[in-house]
């Protein structure tokens, strides 16, 4: 996939810009706070229908305005598409491809895939399991529509079940027949999700492991999938938890409690990994995501690298440039605050590189 042109109106710090990209490697440099990450976020919007940073569409409107729009000319498998995302205060966000609106925004997911590697990714290591689940959900939703549908269903019924438990507590009554329906639905969609997480993880691991090796040498990185569903007898287990669920007013069994444990040499990465090791781990996670999407879709997603060189030693930066060179990646956007470091890297990269400077409210091509 390739972005040929990007137009932004009132998106974050940008009032109006129109940029044309010609190369496979696009480097964006500029001082802190000039809008490099925002530019990547605009591309992210075109792929995921939302921001990677700020989930409120409204806050992504340039301060003082009342709408934004992002228009990209994308080339996929030698066909051009005009992809447009517009949001106006108080209205529903709309997405158009070649001027046709989607009936549901979710129909867009996976159509124009992108992978973002961002400085926040190390949260995946440190924070709670929901971020790790979200990482795999985002990957699987892009490549498997059934997974996406099951996940939507599961989350919806889970919310209903938890609300029902609260309603029981409030009204001091209960209704086994109703809760049973929710259990049944959670078992049905939950077991699909569980199987797919297990199977896709097995297919994903070789990509991930190979990237980690390329970045960090011989250390062994692993991911272990943990799920209540591994216990089997889903339906029985829901019933078994019923009494406790009534007391806690939430559902204590199910795939919403799954975790993906990150391990380095068999030990928890969170505890023993250095910052650099953690960073390598999450970069490998993302590159693995990239490779998996390539394999499923048979074309290359856009790769967005935000401040990727931060916290990596020279050795690892070299390994990374080697990956960028060798693995015939598609179009890549790289942001960096330091001109010299970018120029160093550009020397190493064999593909054609365009450099843009991001200054206050504007983006200029410098080479």
């Amino acid at each position, binding site marked *: 996939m390739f972005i040929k042109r990007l137009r932004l109106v009132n998106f974050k710090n940008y009032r109006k810009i129109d940029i044309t990209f010609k190369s496979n490697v696009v480097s964006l440099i500029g001082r802190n706070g000039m809008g490099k990450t925002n530019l990547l976020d605009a591309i992210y919007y075109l792929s995921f229908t939302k921001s990677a940073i700020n989930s409120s569409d409204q806050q992504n409107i340039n301060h003082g305005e009342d709408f934004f729009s992002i228009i990209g000319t994308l080339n996929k498998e030698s066909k051009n598409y005009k992809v447009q995302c517009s949001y106006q205060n108080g209205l529903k966000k709309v997405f158009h491809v070649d001027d046709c609106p989607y009936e549901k925004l979710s129909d867009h997911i996976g159509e124009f895939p992108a992978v973002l590697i961002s400085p926040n990714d190390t949260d995946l290591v440190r924070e709670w399991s929901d971020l790790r689940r979200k990482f795999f959900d985002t990957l699987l939703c892009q490549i498997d529509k059934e997974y996406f549908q099951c996940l939507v*269903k599961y989350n*919806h*019924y889970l*919310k*209903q*079940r938890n*609300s*029902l438990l*609260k*309603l029981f507590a409030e*009204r001091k*009554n209960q*209704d086994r*027949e*109703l809760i*049973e*329906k*929710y259990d*049944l*639905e959670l078992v049905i969609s939950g077991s699909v999700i569980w199987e797919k997480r297990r199977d896709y993880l097995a297919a994903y691991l070789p990509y991930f492991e190979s990237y980690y090796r390329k970045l960090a040498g011989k250390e062994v990185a692993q991911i272990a999938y943990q799920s209540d569903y591994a216990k089997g007898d889903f339906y029985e287990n829901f019933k078994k938890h019923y009494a406790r669920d009534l007391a806690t007013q939430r559902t204590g069994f199910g795939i919403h409690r799954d975790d993906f444990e990150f391990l380095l040499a068999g030990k928890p990465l969170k505890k023993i990994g250095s910052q650099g090791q953690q960073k390598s781990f999450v970069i490998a996670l993302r590159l693995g995501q990239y490779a998996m999407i390539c394999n499923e879709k048979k074309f290359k997603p856009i790769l967005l690298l935000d401040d990727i060189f931060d916290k990596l030693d020279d050795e690892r930066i070299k390994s990374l440039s080697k990956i960028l060179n060798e693995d015939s990646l598609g179009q890549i956007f790289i942001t960096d605050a330091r001109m010299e470091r970018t120029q160093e890297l550009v020397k190493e990269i064999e593909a054609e590189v365009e450099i843009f400077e991001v200054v206050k409210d504007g983006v200029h091509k410098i080479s």
Partner: protein
Amino acid sequence: MQYPSKLIEDAVSEVSKLPGIGKKTALRLVLHLLKQEEIVTSALSKSLQQLRQEIRYCATCFNISDTDTCNICASHRRDKSIICVVEDIPDVLAIENTGQFNGLYHVLGGIISPMNGIGPEDLNIDRLIQRGSDDVVKEVIMALSATMEGDTTSFYLTKRLKPHNVRVSVIARGVPVGGELEYADEITLGRSIVTRSPYNIAD
């Protein structure tokens, strides 16, 4: 928007609470009413007030009615062995308009959705089960929206009706895709009632 008078502002704010009416339309309607003879506005407010105070619901099916038992429930020409369960009153009107259904109705008054604070006891369910236990009733048709909540409600009612030995069926789906019965066109809605299928739940 700035209004020249607080009275207008209040009236606009009330009228714009109606579905599909924005502030602009509300203002237009309010100014229109002001231009009419006073009797027009008092007739309007009187009829609304009366509607609110005197409206009654059929004690059997909860359809709107001027009497204790609605016209449909009271009619000799209706087949009393079939009950069609719907979410709300507009659904009754929609199905009546198809001319394809000759049984009775049961209006639930909503759909089970705990996250909106609606549990089974908030709906007219007990009366339905009671009706289902009458030997005259042979079949109950679930005509609820094709959403997860519609499905949950159908499932729940089916479970509750099970001991009473009535056939439970569901209208052909795929008709009101994600939408409500009210918006399905008459021909497809009529057909979906005629070609309903048995509703099965696992034990």
